C-alpha cells in the first residue's frame, strides 16, 4: 500500500487486540454512540474485505449487517438436508483474493466445485438424451446451431462472436456499441426462432430483450480463461469450470464467518440501515431499530436493491441516482429436495440432471464431495423464477415436485422437498446478482461507483475486472483504497 499515515499514533493505539479489548469493556449501547472512522454497510465479501483492509491500516471500522448472519449471497444452508450452497460457492482458478483470504484465516480450501450429474433435456414434455439432441426431431434449430445443446445456445453465439480479449475491454468507450439487447444481436448473428426460444428458456435475465449483451461478453471473456486452466480438455465448459475450481471445506459460509470473527465485535448484526445523512462533520447512520452510528466515511457494500430503500442526504443525482433506483437484479428461486429409494436415473437410464424449457430452468442432481448422490435442486431464474416466487413456499415445493414427476415419471414418489430459497424474496439482497439492461452499462457502470460525498460504493455490481465472489472482494478493496487515499 503506497500511502503514508497521517495519524500513526492514533492508529497504532487502536491496532489489533486493543480494539477488541476496548470494545468488550463497554456496553453495546455506549459503543453504539461511538464514532468509527468508517462504517461499512453490509457484511458480505465486499464489506468484510473492505473492513479488514481498513482495520489492517489502523482505522476503526463498524460493519452494519441487516441480516442475522454474515456472508450475504454466499450462504451454506446448514438448515437444509445436505447443507446445499444457496449462493456463490465456486472459487475460480484465478480468484486471487478469495484464495488468499482462507490462508490468512486458517480456512481450508479443496479442489473442485459444483459437480453435478450431466443433463437430460426436457423439450416440451419429451425427454431427450444430450447425445440424441443434434439429430432429434424436436431439435428445431437451424444449421450449425443444431450442434449446440439447448443449455449452451447462448454460449454458442456469445462465445463464437465475442470480440473482447482483455478483461476490461467491456469498460472501454468503444464497447458501448455492444450495450444492446442480447436478442437484437442474436437476430443479427442469424439465430433461428427456436434458437432464441431456447436462449430465453435458460436465461438468468428476464429475457433476451432485457439484458445487455455487453455484460455477457465480459463474463464470456473472463470465463474463457477460467475454463482453460487445469487438466480439463475434452470436457464441456461447465465441467471444465468445475474441475479447475475450488471450494471452501465445510461450506462457503465458513469463509465470511472467519472474516467476521477476525473483525471481532465491530461486526453488528440485525442492523437495517434506513438513513444515511452526511454533512461536513461526518456521516450519521440510522437503523430501523432506532440506533444511530457516526463515522467519517461510509461504504455501501450492499446491492442497489436494498440501498434504494435507504434515504440518503444529500440525495444521489443523475445517472448515479438512476443506477441505484433502477439497476435490475436477477431472479433465482430454488427448491431443494432429497431423493428416496432406487436412483431414478438408473431406472430410466438417462442422465440425472434435467434442463427444461418449461416452468423450471434446471433440476440439478449434485454429486456431493463425499460421493453421495442424494439430492436434487430445482432452479427457476429469470421470469421463471419470478413466477415460482408468486407461489407461497409450500405450494412452490409441491408445484416443483409435480412438475419434475410429470416430466420424468421415474422420479414419481421418490423426491421430498427439504427447503425452498428465493434470492429476490430473501431479505436484504433483492436478487442473486445485478443484471444490466440494454444501455445501462454505458449509463451506469462508470457513474455509479463514483464516491458520493462521504459515501463509497462496493459490491459485485461495481466490479471491474473480476466476476463472482472475486468481484465482490475486488470491489471492497477498491472502496477501502479510495477511503485510505482520502484519510492521508
Amino acid at each position, binding site marked *: 500500500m503506497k500511502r503514508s499515515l497521517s495519524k500513526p499514533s492514533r492508529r497504532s493505539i487502536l491496532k489489533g487486540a486493543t480494539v477488541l479489548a476496548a470494545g468488550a469493556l463497554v456496553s453495546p449501547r455506549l459503543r453504539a454512540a461511538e464514532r468509527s472512522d468508517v462504517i461499512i454497510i453490509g457484511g458480505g465479501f465486499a464489506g468484510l474485505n473492505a473492513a479488514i483492509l481498513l482495520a489492517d491500516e489502523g482505522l476503526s471500522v463498524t460493519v452494519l449487517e*441487516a441480516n442475522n448472519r454474515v456472508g450475504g449471497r454466499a450462504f451454506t444452508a446448514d438448515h437444509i438436508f445436505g447443507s446445499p450452497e444457496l449462493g456463490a460457492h465456486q472459487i475460480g482458478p484465478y480468484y486471487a483474493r478469495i484464495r488468499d483470504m482462507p490462508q490468512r484465516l486458517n480456512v481450508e480450501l479443496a479442489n473442485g466445485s459444483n459437480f453435478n450429474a450431466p443433463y437430460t433435456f426436457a423439450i*416440451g*414434455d419429451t425427454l431427450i438424451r444430450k447425445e440424441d439432441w443434434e439429430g432429434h426431431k424436436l431439435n428445431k434449430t437451424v444449421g450449425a446451431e443444431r450442434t449446440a445443446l439447448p443449455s449452451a445456445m447462448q454460449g454458442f453465439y456469445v462465445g463464437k462472436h465475442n470480440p473482447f480479449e482483455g478483461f476490461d475491454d467491456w469498460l472501454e468507450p468503444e464497447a458501448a456499441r455492444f450495450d444492446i439487447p442480447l*436478442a437484437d444481436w442474436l437476430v443479427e448473428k442469424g439465430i433461428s426462432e427456436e434458437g432464441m*426460444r431456447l436462449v*430465453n428458456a435458460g436465461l438468468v435475465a*428476464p*429475457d433476451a*430483450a*432485457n439484458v445487455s449483451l455487453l455484460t455477457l461478453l465480459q463474463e464470456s471473456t473472463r470465463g474463457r480463461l477460467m475454463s482453460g486452466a487445469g487438466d480439463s480438455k475434452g470436457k464441456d465448459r461447465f465441467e471444465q469450470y468445475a474441475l479447475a475450481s475450488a471450494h471452501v471445506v465445510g461450506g462457503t459460509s465458513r469463509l465470511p464467518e472467519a472474516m467476521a470473527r477476525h473483525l471481532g465485535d465491530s461486526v453488528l448484526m440485525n442492523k*437495517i440501515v*434506513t438513513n444515511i445523512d452526511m454533512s461536513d462533520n461526518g456521516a450519521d447512520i440510522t437503523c*430501523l431499530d*432506532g440506533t444511530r452510528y457516526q463515522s467519517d466515511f461510509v461504504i455501501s457494500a450492499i446491492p442497489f436493491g*436494498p440501498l*434504494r*430503500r435507504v*434515504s440518503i442526504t444529500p*440525495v444521489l443525482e443523475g445517472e448515479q*441516482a438512476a443506477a441505484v*433506483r*433502477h439497476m435490475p437484479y436477477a431472479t433465482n428461486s430454488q427448491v431443494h429436495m432429497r431423493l428416496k429409494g432406487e436412483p431414478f436415473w438408473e431406472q430410466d437410464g438417462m442422465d440425472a440432471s434435467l434442463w427444461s424449457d*418449461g*416452468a423450471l430452468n434446471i433440476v440439478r442432481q449434485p454429486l456431493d464431495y463425499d460421493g453421495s448422490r442424494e439430492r436434487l435442486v430445482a432452479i427457476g431464474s429469470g*421470469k421463471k423464477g*419470478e*413466477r415460482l416466487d*408468486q*407461489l407461497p413456499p409450500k405450494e412452490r415445493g409441491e*408445484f416443483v415436485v*409435480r*412438475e419434475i414427476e*410429470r416430466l420424468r415419471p421415474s422420479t414419481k414418489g421418490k423426491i421430498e422437498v427439504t427447503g425452498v430459497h428465493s434470492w429476490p*424474496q430473501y*431479505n*436484504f439482497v433483492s436478487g442473486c446478482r445485478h443484471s444490466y*439492461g440494454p444501455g445501462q452499462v454505458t449509463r451506469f457502470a462508470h457513474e455509479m461507483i463514483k464516491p458520493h460525498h462521504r459515501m463509497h460504493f462496493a459490491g459485485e455490481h461495481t466490479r471491474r475486472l473480476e466476476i463472482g465472489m472475486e468481484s465482490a472482494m475486488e470491489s471492497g478493496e477498491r472502496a477501502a483504497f479510495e477511503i485510505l487515499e482520502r484519510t492521508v
Partner: protein
Amino acid sequence: MTHNTTPKRTLSRRGFNAALGASASLPLLGRKAFAFESADVIVVGAGLAGLNAALNLEAEGYSVIVLEAADYVGGRTRTYDFPSGPTNAGGQTIGPYYARIRDLADRLGVPLMSPPGRVAMGNYVSGELVSSADWPNAKVNKTVGAERNVQPGALEFFYLSNNNPLPDVESWKESEQAHLDVSIARYMLNKGASEEALRLASITMNVFSLSTGSALAYLRDIKRLQWGIATSDNQNTRSTYGASTEDDGFEFSEVAGGTQRLPEAMAAALNGDVRLNQPVRSISMTGENVEVKTNDGSRFQSKYVVSAVPFSVLRNIDVFPHFEGIQRSAVRQSGHGNTVRVFMEPKTPFWDDDIGEAGLYTDTAIERVFARSNEEGEIVGIDCWVNGNAAFRLDQLPSEAVGDFVVDTLANIRPSSRGKVDVIKVHSWAKHSASGCCRHVFEAGQVTEWADVMAKPHNRLHLAGEQTRSIENGMEAAAKSGERAAFEIMERIG
C-alpha cells in the same frame, strides 16, 4: 351501461369457436396438444379491470375465459373478514364520479353505503406527541409560513391542489405540461415548500420517494379528485384520502360488506369461467391465434388476449413476440408502489389517555396509524399504514416480525397504547400478493417517456389495468381500462 353508443353485434359472428370447437378441428397432435380450451378472448387477471373487460365482451356475445393467479378475485380490492367486521386492505372509496363502478354495483345488486366518518388524526413528529389543535403552534412544527397551519398529513394536498397548474385532467399528456414531469420534491420546492414540509409530506405520498415520483402524474390524480370536491377551501385539513369523505355535498360511498363483494359479484355474473390459481406463464401470438400457457402447463387458445394485470406481473410473463421499443421499457421498468398495512384491534380507548385523537401521523418507521370505526362510529380498528420507500423497508423484516415491530414502535411513541393493541393481520402488497404492488407510479420523466405507449395494443394483446389510466382515478380507472380494452377488441373483430 356507459357504452351504449357502441353498435351491437350479432351472436352468429363469434359463436363458432366457443368451448371445444377449436380443439376438435385441429389435426391429431398427440395427447398433450388436445389439452386446451378456447374462447374468443382470454383475460389475464381478475381484478376490476379484467372482470369489467370480460363483462363488456360477454355483453356483446363474445366468449371469455378469465385467468387469475391468486386464489380469490378482486386483485387489489381485497377484503378481510375480521371479527370486528369486513376490512379493506386495498381499494375502498367510491368517488362521486365513479360512473362505471356505481353502475356495476347497481346492476349486480351490490349495496353501497356512506363511509363511516374519519377519525381525527393527531401527530407524532420529531419525538413529540401533538394534537391536531396544538400543531400550528407546536415547537416541533418546523414548517414555515402558511405551512404551519397545515396538518402534516395534509401538506401534500396543500401543495399539489392549490393552484394546480393543470387546466383539466385530460391535459396531463399534452406537451405543454411536460415541464411538470419533474420530481414532486422539485415541484414543491419551486412552490416554496420548506425542507421540513418536504420531509413531512413524503410520509403521506405513495411514491417511492418525493425525489423520484413525478409531479405531473400526481397533479393529474389530484385534479381528478378536485372535480369531486365542491369547494376549494378547508384544504388545510384535507389529505387526498380525507378529501374524499369531507362533508362537501358530494356522495362518496363504499361497498357494504367490503369492496371485494363487487368483483365477486362481477365474476359470478360472467357466463365464462374465472380460473383461480392460474398464474400465466406465456402468451404466444402467431398468425391469427393466441396461446396462453399457465404455470401448471394448462393451455388456452383465443383470438385476442387482455392483460389486466399490473406491469409488475406482466413483466414476468413470456410474451412472444416481445414488446418493442419504449413499450418494452415501460413494461419492464415502470415503477410500482407498495403499501404495508398492519391491522390491529384496540382493547381499550387508550388514546383518551393522551391527546385524545386515535389516529396518528408520525415521522417514524410506521408512518401513519388510522382509526377504523364501524357504522355506529365506534372505533374498532387501529391500522398502521406504511407506503412508499418506508413500506419496502418494513418488508425487509421477516414477515412474522412486522406486527411486533409496529406494536413496539407504537408503544414507544405512544405509551398509552402499550399492551392495548392486538395485531390481527399484516398485509404487504408487494410481498404478499399476486399483484406485486399496490399501484403503478410514474417516476419523474416517465409520463413524457411512456404515457403514450402504455395502453397501446401489442399484436393481439390489449392492455388494461390502472397503470393504463388516462383520466379516472382508483377503482374507476381500473373499470374504465377494462372497458377500453374490450372495445378495442370489439373494433378489431368488427
